[in-house]
């Protein structure tokens, strides 16, 4: 029997006490692993959120909001300025227009209602007429059909994902073909199917596909390639909305600043940087909480081993004196007690790591869910340029709940490293006590 085997044997000298120490250590080490997993998963999610959510910047002509306001559309020169701006990874441009009954043979699937009627109350009226005259002479207003010319048909999607094509196929947003995607409500209203045609601005347009977004406004519209709409409306190079995607939400503010400088007062720039920052902030608070948990559990584990070993050394003071009296060196006695502490810690680590593997997943999910509940964000219904905030909030929420807890070799190695640190700290002070015990004490105690 050598120092190591004596140390291991001593670890089981008092099964009840050893069991209690191991249990406390296991809880502590299990917590360390769970917190490391949570922190790593959350940090990975933070990077993902930064790369995917709140990274879009919407640039519209100054003074224009949907079909309201006034001003000139953005030009192709301005678009050329936007594209090479630092951190912008992609852009999609949109030109919106409305088809009246004189522009198309389509019948709008929207009811005009009091809202629509109020929006059209100034049209066809005489400025010199009295209010009663205008109401009496103006023809009855009719609802219009919105046309979206875009380089990216998916930008019309309201959930941040790809556009849901229920039949047919999507269109190439960069072409100039006379093709269109028709909203499901409009298609039903006009008995349109894939391959059907309709007229717009005096041209015949073929239906390539039918889409459904579960948004009545969008599903009552038509999507065509950007160039097609520019050609049909005689607005070559004009766009009234550009959505730029930035590589990380960290760079949204700086990109907005760069665009503001480049475009001056001719464009209004809207971003989701604040929303993304809020979402990331809640995840970052979880990450910090997890780090505090790791540190706290490490300190708790070290203190458990430290106090247990101090108690054991004090209890065996006489025995240590005997070992020294019969020729045992400080090194051998300390080695025996360090082995004992290591044995308790390693067993605690095995149990704790097993516990950690079992609970880290639910714990991470629980932490993220509770955070999500406490940072509720509301999305308000959007009309007109709904794509400005399309699915942004929803996208962030989805990302948060998808935090996956995974235990990597790095996390395992870190946990084992921390465990060894606990054993080292827990053994250091008792070792100092052991070195101070003089062998003569064994005779004084006689």
């Amino acid at each position, binding site marked *: 029997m050598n120092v190591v085997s*004596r140390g291991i044997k001593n670890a089981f000298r008092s099964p009840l006490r050893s069991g209690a120490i191991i249990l406390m250590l296991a809880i502590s080490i299990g917590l360390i692993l769970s917190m490391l997993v949570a922190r790593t998963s959350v940090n990975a999610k933070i990077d993902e959120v930064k790369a995917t959510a709140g990274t879009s910047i919407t640039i519209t002509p100054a003074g224009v909001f949907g079909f309201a306001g006034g001003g000139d559309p953005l030009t192709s020169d301005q678009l050329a300025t936007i594209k090479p701006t630092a951190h912008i990874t992609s852009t999609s441009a949109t030109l919106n227009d409305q088809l009246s009954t004189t522009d198309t043979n389509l019948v709008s699937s929207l009811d005009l209602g009091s809202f629509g009627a109020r929006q059209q109350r100034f049209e066809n009226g005489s400025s010199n007429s009295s209010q009663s005259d205008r109401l009496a002479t103006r023809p009855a207003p009719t609802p219009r059909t919105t046309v979206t010319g875009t380089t990216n048909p998916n930008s019309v999607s309201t959930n941040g994902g790809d556009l849901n094509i229920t039949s047919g196929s999507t269109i190439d947003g960069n072409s100039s073909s006379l093709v269109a995607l028709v909203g499901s409500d409009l298609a039903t209203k006009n008995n349109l199917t894939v391959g059907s045609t309709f007229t717009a601005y005096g041209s015949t347009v073929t239906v390539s596909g039918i889409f459904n977004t579960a948004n009545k406004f969008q599903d009552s519209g038509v999507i065509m390639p950007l160039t097609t709409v520019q050609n049909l409306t005689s607005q070559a190079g004009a766009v009234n909305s550009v959505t730029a995607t930035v590589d990380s939400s960290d760079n949204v503010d700086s990109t907005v600043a760069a665009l503001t400088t480049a475009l001056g007062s001719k464009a209004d720039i809207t971003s989701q940087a604040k929303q993304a920052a809020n979402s990331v902030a809640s995840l970052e608070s979880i990450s910090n909480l997890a780090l505090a948990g790791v540190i706290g559990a490490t300190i708790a584990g070290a203190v458990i081993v430290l106090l247990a070993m101090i108690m054991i050394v004090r209890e065996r003071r006489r025995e240590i004196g005997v070992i020294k009296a019969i020729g*045992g060196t400080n090194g051998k006695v300390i080695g025996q007690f360090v082995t004992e502490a290591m044995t308790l810690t390693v067993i605690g680590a095995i149990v704790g790591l097993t516990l950690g593997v079992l609970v880290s997943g639910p714990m991470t999910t629980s932490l993220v869910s509770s955070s999500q509940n406490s940072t509720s964000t509301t999305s308000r219904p959007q009309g007109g340029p709904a794509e400005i905030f399309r699915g942004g909030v929803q996208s962030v929420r989805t990302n948060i709940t998808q935090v996956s807890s995974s235990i990597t070799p790095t996390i395992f190695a870190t946990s084992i490293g921390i465990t060894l640190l606990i054993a080292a700290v827990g053994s250091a002070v008792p070792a100092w006590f052991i070195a101070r015990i003089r*062998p*003569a004490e*064994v005779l004084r105690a006689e």
Partner: protein
Amino acid sequence: MLAVKDLSKSFSSASGDVKALDQVNLVVETGQFASIIGKSGSGKSTLLSLLGALDIPTSGSIEVDGVDIAKLSAGQQTAYRANKIGFVFQHYNLIPNLTALENVMLALEFGGLPAKKRKARAEQLLTDVGLDADQQLRKPARLSGGQQQRVSIARALANHPAIVLADEPTGNLDSETGKKIFDLLHRLSRSEKTTIIAVTHDMDIAGKTDKTFKLKDGKVTA
């Protein structure tokens, strides 16, 4: 030969320095069985701890076969305790979670005996002191006081020490068992030619040793 010259040991206390030993001189020849008697607090245990290099004297010298152990470094003192000294304690002081055999093997490990030879040597020693094979595999709690003291003696003799220091070896035993232990020590001192110095209150035992030193107030008076 053990020669103690002008050995003094003082301790600091709240009321000032206390002289536990004061200019002690004694000589014990190799193979002799010597006893130290004295009342409680006379300095017996202090003398024993200094002879066993468990403590450092304030002044004076302790020469064992010509080497002054008071001048040895801490490491050398540990080696001296492992190889030259055997201790027998009143309360046996066996390691409770080791068997009798393992307790003796522990001393052999500290004495530097190769691991392969330890078991045979320990079994031989325990057989010599009268423990059978079954008793050798028992832990101290399952041995009687006399059996534990036999294990303690086997452990003390494990590394062929020059001196065995016994602190009231029969003090915790009934008279009959005490006599047997004394006889065992006496027999071993003869057969192994080991110097034995025993602290005792028992005048009968002291009367049977080769030499007796009486301590009073830290001084050898006879």
